[in-house]
């Protein structure tokens, strides 16, 4: 499916909608003041996404959540070490040295945080469009970013070569961290979504 400029702009806008809510819920969970900038939303292909998260072999946490209901697809949440450290340190007091040391309780905490952030994200899209959207239990893996990404983009490469990529920048105390979210609806859902906003597909 080839997307025109208007459709791309709308997808970017949808990417924007939930971002503020996600940051607010993060701030509540960590009981910390978190300031955020306007998220950068772009439509990128595999190679450009890899580049912006530090190369194919960079180890990151990937959390995959599927959504279903009026629209279907998946959201992949990618967290680099700095962001993971901020979460684990705030919640559990962990000083994360390397990803090899992550234990089950920390994996659960990361899944839960991702779940809440993705929920608030999806909920804001749902309430704005009046659609019913549910999300599944998150699946978490820690591995090379390239490997986490090809598994997801390949599933959707028949929809489009590019995916909605949302990069958010947070300031917390003296730290600046980023989160990365990929939004991948399937073809019928993409059409429904575009129609909801009054754009022909």
């Amino acid at each position, binding site marked *: 499916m080839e997307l025109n400029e208007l459709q791309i702009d709308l997808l970017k806008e949808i990417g924007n909608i939930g971002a503020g809510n996600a940051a607010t819920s993060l701030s509540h969970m960590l009981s910390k003041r978190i300031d955020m900038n306007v998220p950068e939303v772009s439509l990128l292909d*595999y*190679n450009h996404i890899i580049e912006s998260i530090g190369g*194919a*072999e960079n*180890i990151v946490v*990937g959390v*995959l959540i*599927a959504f279903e209901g009026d629209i279907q697809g*998946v959201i992949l949440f990618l967290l680099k070490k700095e962001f993971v450290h901020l979460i684990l340190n705030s919640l559990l007091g962990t000083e994360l040295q390397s*990803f*090899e040391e992550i234990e089950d309780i920390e994996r659960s905490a990361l899944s839960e945080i991702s779940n809440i952030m993705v929920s608030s994200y999806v909920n804001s899209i749902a309430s704005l469009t009046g659609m019913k959207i549910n999300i*599944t*239990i998150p*699946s978490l*893996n*820690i*591995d*090379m*970013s*390239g*490997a*986490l*990404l*090809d*598994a*997801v983009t*390949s*599933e959707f*490469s028949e929809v489009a070569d590019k995916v909605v990529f949302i990069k958010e920048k947070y300031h917390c105390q003296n730290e600046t961290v980023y989160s990365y979210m990929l939004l991948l609806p399937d073809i019928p859902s993409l059409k429904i979504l575009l129609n909801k906003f009054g754009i022909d597909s």
Partner: protein
Amino acid sequence: MKTITVGISDMKIVRVPDLLISYALGSCVGVCIIDKSAQVAGMAHILLSYNKNGDKNIFKYADTGITEMVRQMEGLGALKSRMTAKIAGGAKMFEIKGSSSLGHIGERNVAATKETLADLKIRITAQDVGKNYGRTITFDSSTGKLTIKSFGKELKVI
């Protein structure tokens, strides 16, 4: 000796003593074929199983990608009857409960790769496929050895 990188949905062929490398294969499959006598080796980094719609990006798919790689290797003096293959990748990186369609791409890629190699009568001498982790693979055209690097695991040579 040079090391040639094979990007996603791409293919490269080298002669002895060069190395071929593909980074971070998840559900993708790295297909390595060698003719030791002709001293020619190739690597394809395939993303999907079958090219059903005649996509021009042939190296994205196992069937058209492997077939074309073999054809080009023959053009460089390799003989199909002497070729052997090693394959790696095809992992299932995420387990989504209740979704039947999601997450089987890796498995399908491996099956299509094996079927295509069988059709071409090229024997698979070693493989490291499936599971739930990523692999960076390096293929040595001099020895035919495939080295596999994964996060939190020992280096593996097959």
